[in-house]
């Protein structure tokens, strides 16, 4: 993997006293894999929930809708450590979901991150769907579509904006440390992610290694969003060719 070759000289440069060993490199790859895997799973799950809900909130008028929208926007700023704490207590053996034995597993981290990503994705999807509904809603209804049928159609119309919404959700999940360290426990080669590793390295005074890992984290975030935008751009131009 090219990043490994790219990053190891930096680690060596920042940490002249140490040499990065093979097992350290393996740990490193595993940590990155887990971070990306958990965040992707959480973003996918959150998207499956948020896309239909966000659009439905724009299409279906019902009593209390404004309140829900205000709440969802407020949960943008949901402190991860609070989500982590609530889930910790819920998933604990002595908590209501204790029988599932999920505390200190990657699944617990996915649940926590999904919870954090849902408000962000839902709010962004709602905002863009609202605009699309205002513009095309009457047309769709006149064409004989029910509101339920209009949901996927509105999602198709706003699909370019969905990319931004999903990336915002992914960005929230991969950069977060407060929730995953509580429900994951930062267990080596099981629940240790990039952010919890950075926290651990910092606590051991390995500031340069922590910084190098931070650079990798930023690099991964940037390359993922660049890739997604490139793919979305290609899909969009391919789509317009068909039209």
């Amino acid at each position, binding site marked *: 993997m090219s990043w490994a070759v790219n990053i190891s000289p930096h680690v060596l440069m920042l940490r002249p006293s140490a040499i990065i060993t093979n097992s350290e490199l393996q740990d490193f790859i595993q940590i990155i894999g887990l971070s990306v895997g958990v965040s992707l*799973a959480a973003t*996918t*799950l959150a998207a*499956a*929930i948020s896309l*239909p809900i966000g659009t439905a909130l724009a299409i279906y008028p019902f009593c209390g809708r404004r309140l829900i929208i205000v709440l969802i926007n407020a949960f943008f700023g949901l402190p991860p450590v609070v989500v982590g704490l609530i889930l910790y207590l819920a998933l*604990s*053996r*002595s*908590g209501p979901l*204790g029988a*599932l*034995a*999920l*505390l*200190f*597993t*990657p*699944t*617990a981290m*996915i649940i926590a991150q999904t919870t954090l990503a849902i408000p962000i994705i839902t709010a962004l999807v709602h905002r863009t769907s609202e605009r699309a509904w205002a513009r095309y809603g009457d047309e769709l209804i006149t064409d004989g579509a029910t509101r339920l049928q209009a949901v996927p159609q509105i999602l198709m119309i706003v699909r370019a904006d969905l990319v931004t919404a999903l990336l915002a959700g992914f960005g929230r999940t991969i950069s977060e440390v407060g929730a995953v360290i509580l429900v994951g*426990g*930062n*267990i*080596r080669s*099981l629940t240790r992610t990039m952010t919890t590793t950075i926290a651990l390295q*910092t*606590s*051991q*005074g*390995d*500031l340069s290694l922590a910084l190098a890992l931070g650079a990798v984290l930023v690099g991964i975030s940037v390359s993922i969003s660049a890739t997604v935008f490139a793919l979305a751009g290609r899909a969009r131009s391919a789509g317009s060719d068909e039209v």
Partner: protein
Amino acid sequence: MMKIRYVVAFLAAMIVTGRCLAAEESIVLASTTSVEASGLLADILPQFTAKTGIRVNVVAQGTGKALDTARRGDADVLLVHDPEAEDQFMSEGHGSTRRQIAWNDFIIVGPTTDPARVHGSSDSVAALKSIASTQALFVSRGDKSGTNTAELRLWKIAGQTPDQLSNQKWYRDVGGGMGQALNAASAMDAYTLSDRGTWLNFNNKGSLVIAVEGDPRLINRYDVIELNGQKHASAKFNAAKLFADWLVSSEGQKAIGAYQVSGQTLFNPSANSPK
């Protein structure tokens, strides 16, 4: 509808994966930041896993939090270092057996400028008194960890209660792990109490050096505690017992004693010494 079915299948798959990961021969060891940050566990656990096939998942917390984790039933075995909190834990009936596995010692570290003039002393209480009277900066863990309670015990002997300390400007309660406290002490040229293991393995010492060591009151003992099956039915006793037995066995004791950082032994095996 298809979409929902996929989501349900995905969720189910995740829960199964999570359970499998948890159900694979593995135990959760709730331990202290000092044991993890010193690098001891990363060194000896692979030896245990190689021998028994049991994976040990370490959740490193302060001793107070580790005991709470076990109280809630979220750990299978404990490795901690706070005799009084452990007594309490045992008397509540959460633990079945408690055995000492190793000891090392606490040290007081401080800036080379030594504003409290305590360098080279082996009297920890006199040193704390001098830190208080000169109002030299002192960093406290403040996290109910074993090191934190040891520090507060020493302060009490030195005539300062936690309430009095919290009103002092020079007493900085950082509410964090050992490494965090050392980072803070290093950044503000303050004194702090550290376990020797974390100190030796710590890479951001700045101008900090060992100021006080060798006081018998600075002894730091580590115990392994197995849980009581009557209270914690979900804990994995057999695997936990294998692990605890291994730690006190001659093989485990040898592994603990063999762990060194820059030529220094960090933990003295003591399973066979009197309590």
